[in-house]
């Protein structure tokens, strides 16, 4: 079990309100990702759940039981830190055994769980090494191993992959997702990387300055961002946002068009501009097109082999059904008619 409920949870550091009162429910077995720009309070929120920070107001419940005043160890949650926080003077085996040793578990059971975790995480050959003798990915796995042997009600991850290189990160992402599928335990995962959020989450919580901007599945956020912030944050490359006269034509104060919803046409088209930088990824090519309607270049996705060069003139036509409209407060209108 691992259902976590936040009820008007608030956090102030002195006078600074980092998390304004906030409600959120994390269902049992869910993979929830907190995503948002750096400094928006993701870690703080996670640490409030963990019990490493005291709430200023509100209540946290775990499986329906009040947990607001419980010390971290009593909440039955396990955390994986960004720096891994392994104990450097202990072997991998002792690191993984530490929470069980603290719980006074018997030796045979400890051994059984260590073997199982080491098997699952490919750590069997490294059990007698020190953390300092391991690579970044292996350290990450030890940190995860130390978390799973406790069989917690929920796992908390704070940017666990940000110290790994790009290739390892993709691999570990898959491993953590696998782990979630096999354990079926609640996981709360913090990241500033929307790709991580989109690929791993059952439910994404988009945060800005401590506020929840939107909660939903990855596709919900992609298809129907609630406001311009979410629209700009979710999706890669970013959605093109246009204001002024162009938006007024659609009776909106801002419209958003994703790069993949713009077609290159030979004649006419809604937008005409000059090709700037092109990013060739092989399967796709992203063009940055300078158009008079936008100060920043508009990003356009084209097939892999478009014969366009820097400085060429290009005509673009958005797909009408995929234009997102936002009002003067940045909130989304119902889908374009």
């Amino acid at each position, binding site marked *: 079990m691992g259902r976590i409920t936040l009820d008007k949870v608030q956090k102030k550091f002195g006078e600074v309100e980092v998390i304004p009162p906030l409600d959120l429910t994390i269902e049992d077995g869910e993979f929830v990702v907190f995503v948002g720009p750096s400094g928006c309070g993701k870690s703080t929120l996670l640490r409030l759940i963990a*019990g490493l920070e005291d709430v200023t107001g509100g209540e946290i419940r775990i499986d329906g039981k009040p947990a607001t005043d419980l010390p971290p160890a009593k909440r039955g949650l396990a*955390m994986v830190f960004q*720096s891994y926080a392994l*104990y450097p*003077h202990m072997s991998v085996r002792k690191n993984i055994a*530490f929470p069980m040793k*603290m719980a006074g578990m018997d030796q045979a059971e400890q051994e059984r769980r260590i073997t199982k975790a080491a098997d699952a995480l490919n750590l069997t050959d490294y059990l007698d090494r020190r953390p300092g003798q391991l690579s970044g990915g292996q350290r990450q796995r030890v940190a995860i191993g130390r978390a799973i042997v406790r069989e917690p009600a929920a796992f908390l991850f704070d940017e666990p992959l940000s110290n790994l290189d790009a290739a390892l990160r993709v691999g570990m992402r898959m491993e953590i997702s696998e782990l979630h599928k096999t354990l079926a335990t609640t996981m709360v995962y913090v990241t500033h990387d929307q790709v991580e959020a989109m690929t791993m989450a059952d439910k994404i919580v988009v945060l800005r300055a401590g506020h929840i901007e939107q909660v939903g599945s990855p596709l919900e956020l992609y298809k129907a961002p609630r406001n311009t912030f979410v629209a700009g944050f979710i999706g890669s490359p970013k959605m093109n946002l246009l204001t002024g006269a162009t938006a007024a034509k659609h009776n909106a104060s801002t419209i958003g068009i994703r790069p993949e919803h713009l077609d290159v046409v030979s004649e006419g088209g809604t937008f005409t501009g000059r090709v700037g930088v092109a990013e060739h990824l092989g399967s796709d090519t992203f063009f940055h097109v300078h158009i008079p309607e936008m100060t920043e270049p508009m990003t356009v996705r084209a097939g892999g082999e478009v014969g366009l060069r820097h400085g060429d003139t290009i005509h673009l036509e958005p797909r009408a059904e995929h234009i997102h409209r936002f009002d003067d407060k940045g909130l989304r209108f119902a889908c374009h008619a």
Partner: protein
Amino acid sequence: MATEHSKSSARFMIAPAVFVLLVWMLVPLCMTLYFSFADYRPMRNTFDAWIGFSNYASFLTSSSFLSSVMVTLQMVAGILLITIGGGVALALLLDQPMFGQGIVRILVIAPFFVMPTVSALVWKNMFFNVDNGLFSYLWKFFGAQPYDFLSQSPLLSIVVIVAWQWLPFATLILLTAVQSLSSEQLEAAEMDGAPGYSRFWYIILPHLSRAITVVILIQTIFLLSIFAEIFVTTNGAFGTRTLTYLVYQRVLESQNIGLGSAGGIVAVILANIVAIFLMRIVGKNLDN
């Protein structure tokens, strides 16, 4: 320092410093060595330049030699125990956020700047004195008989005085070590269910082990030559005669320079043995 030319000019330029240093160290050492093989008692006008190892023999076989070595070891061990224990405790306390942290830290460091002679005198006259010492007033306040520290437990008294002087040093080094411990490690241990004392035992203490070995090494080297504190308080009486003090007594009180020199050389050799022994342990500890 790459070319031949720059190398030779560099050598040329550091030569005076090296020369002064050599003279500074070697001349006294050589003279001590020379006297240690001589029968030299200026008060009696005896000078016999070579009497072989008989000075060494009589120094090493005298009953005061062994007891002075034991006293030295006890004293050093006692001081190390207090400074390391107290240093760890103070470092952990000073690491806590508190009002006036900067001033408190400076106050804690202060004893280190007091000259040994002065601090020994202050302790002797202001704290340990039976008639007017602060401890006597404290004892009287609780209705107890004042305790004459310096004659009842002289070794302990000297240990306390020296430990008071060296506590800041240990605290300072241990404090920097405490501050370098990542807070995430402590938080991880907290989440792993480790109560405060377990966090101290399993996380903080191992993290401090390097700093502790460094403190032990440096302090031992300095503590082997404690002198002023003994001179000022007990004059080496009541079982507080360390090896250093014994050498001093042989040279100055008995006016036997040959015997004292032999003792000096013995002390140098013993100190080196201790240092090598410690270096081994420290080196092992610093490796991992």
